[in-house]
């Protein structure tokens, strides 16, 4: 029986269908979770998809962070459940304290949608074990508030502990400190990523299929454990 990966829909989530498609293409079963759910109905991993939850009106992720389902996600994450936050999902993970730092307005002050080259810096997380260290990939990036910030200490700690999952190459599209595109928690089960691997899973609709390995990684990891 296929492994079950939950995809949470918050009011204003946009890439939830895309994330579910990516899960299916990777060989998993996508399970729709609703922001008001109080349990995760036994899924093996969770994706917090991109979008503009609650319009991103206050701060991206600031309101969704209080959704009932997040209590279950936080609890699960602390117990080792693999959680991937993409774009708005990354912002929610930071707001909810599962990941350090915050995401701020792009330094260009514009929303930017582009095919972004990244270097995968850490292959020890639940979501990146399918890549090789230092592998370069190209996936879509689309955000208005994707500038990752944290204080120097936190940044040094992330570097030292190898928790910087991916870095921007060629262009830093949003002013992120140290070109950070994604980070993980200390245990490596929780990953936040600004770019959109779920939009790079089919040759027909994506710039590449480089994003698929995020989803196959977690599935292989789960099979092994």
């Amino acid at each position, binding site marked *: 029986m296929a492994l079950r990966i939950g995809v949470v829909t918050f009011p204003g989530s946009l890439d939830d269908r895309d994330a579910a498609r990516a899960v299916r293409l990777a060989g998993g079963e996508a399970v729709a979770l609703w922001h008001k759910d109080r349990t995760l109905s036994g899924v093996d991993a969770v994706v917090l998809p991109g979008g503009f939850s*609650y*319009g991103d*009106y*206050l701060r991206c992720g*600031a*309101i969704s962070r*209080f959704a009932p389902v997040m209590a279950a996600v936080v609890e699960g994450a602390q117990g080792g459940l693999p959680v991937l936050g993409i774009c708005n999902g990354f912002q929610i993970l930071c707001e909810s304290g599962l990941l350090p730092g915050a995401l701020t307005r792009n330094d260009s002050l514009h929303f930017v949608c582009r095919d972004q080259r990244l270097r995968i810096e850490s292959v020890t997380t639940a979501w990146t074990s399918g890549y090789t260290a230092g592998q370069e990939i190209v996936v879509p990036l689309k955000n208005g508030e994707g500038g990752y910030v944290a204080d120097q200490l936190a940044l040094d700690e992330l570097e030292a502990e190898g928790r910087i999952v991916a870095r921007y190459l060629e262009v830093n599209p949003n002013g992120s400190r140290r070109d950070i595109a994604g980070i993980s928690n200390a245990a490596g089960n929780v990953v936040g990523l600004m770019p959109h691997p779920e939009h790079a899973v089919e040759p027909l609709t994506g710039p590449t299929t480089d994003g698929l390995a995020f989803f196959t990684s977690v599935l292989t990891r789960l099979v092994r454990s």
Partner: protein
Amino acid sequence: MARVVVDVMLKPEILDPQGQAVQGALGRLGFDGVTSVRQGKQFVIDVDGPADETLRGRADEMASTLLANLVIEDYTVRVDD
């Protein structure tokens, strides 16, 4: 060295989606009795020179020409030193 503070708010008759979202969230977080929330912008501007009438005038000009969109927004200007 003087400091100009400009508060910019949507005009009362204009829809404020951001304020609405915050009001909804406050309700769900159990802060009740909240009857209205409006979200505006605040600009804190440091300027060389004295906090005098001239500055007050220039500050007002900054607000009306650049900081506020008078089609949909009102503003208030404060000057302290």
